[in-house]
């Protein structure tokens, strides 16, 4: 994430059932924007 500029996104693929909940929590704690694009696909955007 440190390599991104604000507004840039990365895509995360994960089948771990805890991913959505924990990724949202991480986003809240680190001030990044997280969005689920499907059951195992997540977009993280640096704010």
């Amino acid at each position, binding site marked *: 994430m440190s390599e991104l500029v604000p507004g840039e996104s990365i895509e995360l693929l994960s089948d771990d*059932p*805890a991913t959505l*909940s*924990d990724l*949202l*929590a*991480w986003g*809240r*704690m*680190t001030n990044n924007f997280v969005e689920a694009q499907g059951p195992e696909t997540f977009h993280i955007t640096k704010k």
Partner: protein
Amino acid sequence: MVRVTGNFVKESPLHPKAQAALAAAFDAGWADPKKLSQVANRANRMRAEAIESLAQLLSLRIDEIEVLGEPLLGHYLSIAGFATGASTNIFYGATSRSEIIATARSFTPHEIAVGLKGDIQISPSTQSGIFALQIANGETGVIAPSQQIVDAYPNALIACDATTTPNISLLPNRWDSALFDSQSWAGPAGIAILGIRNSKLWKNPFPHIGIKRVPQSYSLPLLLSSVVALEAWRNESELRQLNQSLRARIAKEVHDCDIAGDLDKSLPSIASFSFLYCHGEELVRALALRGFDVDSGSACTSDDLAPSHVLAAMGVLTHGNIRITLHDGSTQDDIDALATAIIESVAQLRAQR
């Protein structure tokens, strides 16, 4: 008070009086209280005294009290005893115990979301059914606004889950069943008290022959020991200050840490911390090596590798989670040592990644 140094898991040793009572109870109270012999008579008297004491300490009427020898069944009983069919509405917060959620799903479930602080998002409803009301959460300590909930559901029966504290001042002014757990007052496992206030509507939901409201197969010696523990239980409000100092130090000295729920709306004895960039299991082990036993809500530490549904429902991080229970007799020195151990362990684990 028996203290196990470094014990910060949910369970604690029996109070010495409760332990002594247990031995005496097995000597004198092994007989079936319902039979006619002299020993049975004595057992019956011991039971009657125990029930009287319970009635006083939990503000229940004697005829409201049922004793359960399998506490987790109480979660099903306290709701199903009032459910009239599979279409019965069961309302419950998302941070309810999994036994409550499972019971609700066997009828018509209505899950109510909670916010980041574990606060249940209640809006008034005229619906009928049963509200499974969790008085205080066992993982985070968060206390529900019970009276507010009861007032918002005037047409629903109220089944209280009071298994995490014997503090009856937290109960609402109206309820139909209430479940208490012996372990919440450092009594022995294997005893729960079910208060059935609405006996008119109550129906034993298990297949049964006869008039018993619940299966009555608990251990009398365990009940006697549990009552002694409840009599010795001290309201743990003095733990609140220790809890506050622990939370403050962790919040100050560890970055990227989630603390589940605010202390001023929680039971005084519980604190739950989630640390980013840490595995719950590794942290539990690291602390155990330093002589501190703690619980965890992380997926890696659970039987079914699923993260705590309580933390997930709140939107709190489930990774790197540890849960602390403060027991009667904990000192500031204990807390300082625990805090140092946590701070150092988290730093070490993070440095290794």
